[in-house]
């Protein structure tokens, strides 16, 4: 039915008698090393990279211009008004933190679950996590109004003998996001050291050898090192797993511990975490599809990988939809008239347009992934990823703004509109995000080479001529095990 030339790239068959290969084509350790490291070391930087970089760097410049303007003028340059004291800054913060979650989920939780397919995409997703958290971190930093006292957020001894209020969820946030950013960075870097050593050993230029030499810390692939390294990696994954679930829970406490209807709800932590994973996977996909196409990585990041991601998007998207429904049910069943009003107002009030964008993009369109044909079609999935990105930004907008703009006192109700400064700051944060992604693609190995090699069939010491019974890893060939007994 399909052309034989492209058929080998399709490894999405569900036939259990034909186990799917994760790495396609006739790849071995050598070709994997070459395909990934040549992107950084050998290939000439494509013109498109320079064009894209110029554009995103320009947007980044706009971000910093807007921040400068904000600091010099005050938060009045934003569209905040009297009831709506929390606008796009917090929306963008929650959006970007959420994006980061896919990286940690892929790197830590799927690692603990022994999902081998994660090895092709985890480096990229972790990088995206860090860049997203950087973008997120900017917004609470600048939205405090008096930016020059932002250090009050941290327990730093000071001349006023004041300490921060540790009973406030906003301070929990500082610690949660700070810890998350730090641990993600340590995890990402630890995972990258063996690959940086590969780059060091393949680099031809002196400068490259020195830089990758320093970054790889003198790694020589010693098994005595691998032994501790694997233990450390496993424990870091174990630490990152509760951490990733806690970060968006704590972010949701910012809302859930407030008294405002529509915010004061116990469903927020799980609902925020599911939404974060949902949006994060969509963002990974948004970036991976062009990257694998452009850099010839279709054999390493195969359709099977993308299909698995789409299944996770379908699952988490359905959880998000279920959470929306539960919120409505509780608003009615709880019998609190203010709560009831807030939800009717969300769906049918002045922000109904935003609400229905959210529902369409988050609940309705991801359901298309039930169909195998659609979830294995590259154009379809890419468009749906964009929809999810849009929908999840609007989710945070709806939560933040609808509850604030119509609170308990009808005389103080007001409609919130962003200003051009709000819009340019948000676009600028995209510029910063993509600038960092482009730098990452150009200078660091975007696929975890060492990890991909471990899931290839020839990495298994029992493969080939020394085939023995018992096929789980860690099993020692019998003749060796016998000799080991002293």
């Amino acid at each position: 039915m399909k052309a034989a030339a492209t058929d080998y790239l399709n490894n999405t068959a569900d036939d259990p008698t034909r186990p799917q290969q994760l790495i396609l084509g006739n790849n071995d350790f050598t070709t994997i090393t070459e395909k990934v490291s040549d992107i950084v070391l050998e290939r000439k930087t494509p013109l498109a990279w320079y064009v894209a970089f110029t554009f995103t760097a320009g947007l980044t410049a706009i971000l910093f211009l807007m921040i400068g303007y904000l600091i010099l003028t005050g938060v009045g340059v934003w569209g905040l008004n009297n009831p709506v004291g929390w606008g796009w800054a917090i929306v963008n913060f929650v959006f970007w933190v959420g994006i980061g979650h896919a990286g940690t989920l892929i790197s830590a939780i799927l690692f603990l679950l022994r999902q081998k397919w994660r090895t092709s995409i985890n480096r990229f997703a972790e990088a995206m996590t860090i860049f997203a958290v950087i973008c997120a971190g900017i917004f609470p930093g600048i939205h405090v109004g008096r930016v020059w006292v932002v250090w009050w957020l941290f327990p730093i001894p000071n001349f006023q003998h004041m300490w921060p209020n540790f009973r406030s969820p906003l301070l929990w946030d500082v610690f949660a996001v700070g810890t998350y950013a730090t641990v993600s960075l340590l995890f990402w870097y630890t995972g990258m050291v063996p690959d940086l050593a590969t780059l060091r050993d393949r680099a031809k230029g002196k400068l490259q050898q020195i830089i990758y030499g320093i970054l790889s810390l003198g790694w020589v692939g010693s098994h005595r090192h691998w032994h501790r390294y694997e233990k450390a990696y496993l424990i870091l994954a174990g630490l990152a797993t509760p951490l990733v679930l806690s970060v968006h829970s704590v972010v949701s406490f910012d809302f859930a511990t407030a008294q405002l209807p529509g915010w004061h709800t116990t469903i927020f932590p799980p609902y925020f975490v599911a939404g974060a994973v949902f949006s994060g996977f969509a963002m990974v996909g948004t970036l991976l599809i062009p990257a694998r196409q452009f850099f010839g990585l279709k054999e390493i990041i195969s359709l099977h990988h993308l299909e698995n991601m789409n299944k996770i998007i379908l699952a988490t998207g359905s959880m998000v939809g279920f959470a929306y429904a539960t919120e409505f049910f509780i608003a009615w069943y709880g019998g609190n008239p203010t709560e009831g009003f807030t939800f009717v107002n969300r769906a049918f009030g002045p922000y109904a347009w935003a609400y229905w964008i959210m529902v369409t993009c988050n609940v309705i369109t991801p359901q298309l992934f039930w169909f195998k044909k659609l979830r294995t079609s590259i154009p379809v999935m890419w468009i749906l990823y964009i929809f999810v990105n849009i929908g999840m930004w609007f989710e945070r907008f709806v939560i933040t703004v609808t509850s604030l703009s119509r609170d308990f006192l009808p005389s103080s109700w007001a409609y919130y509109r962003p200003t051009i400064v709000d819009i340019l700051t948000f676009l600028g944060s995209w510029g910063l995000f993509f600038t960092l992604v482009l730098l990452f693609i150009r200078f660091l190995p975007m696929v975890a080479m060492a990890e991909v090699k471990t899931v290839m069939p020839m990495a298994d010491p029992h493969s080939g001529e020394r085939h023995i019974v018992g096929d789980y890893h860690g099993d020692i060939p019998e003749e060796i095990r016998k000799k080991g007994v002293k």
Partner: protein
Amino acid sequence: MSQGALYGLLTEFESPSLLLEAAAKVRDQGFRKWDVHTPFPVHGMDDAMGIRGTRLPWIILAGGLTGLAAATAMQWWMNAIDYPFVISGKPLFGLPANIPIMFELTVLFSAFATFFGMWGLNGMPRWYNPLLTNRRFRRATQDRFFIVIEARDPAFKLDQTREFLASLGGSEVEEVHESAED
């Protein structure tokens, strides 16, 4: 061509299964200062080399407990002792409001202990390694598998060890010196 004292002898293998078999033989000869170098962790190698468990988890546990203690003490001292103030009727120090930061700092300190503990136990960063003067060895981070026996091993005797390594079925045995011209 080469200079400096002898660092050790190396031999190269093409596949993890050949390496695993050879490593068990080296272990059974009673060598101590030896290692295998691979582009990725080879499963079963811990046993084939006779490596015992690492004490890293204990370092991490200590790190985590330090974080937990630091978070508890910090919140209690700062909010209940040094600068007490009542806000929204919450107690000055009470577990529910203080658990999130206890959790976060436990994870943070554990992660630092993992990161620095692992590199520390591995003796890294190590900016100079005689092995990297060997051109062939650079494939240890790419697609080849090596066994290295160091000259400082008590059981090391140049000719006999060379002969033994050659009998393992790898490539030609090479000498590595402390410093060499590239």
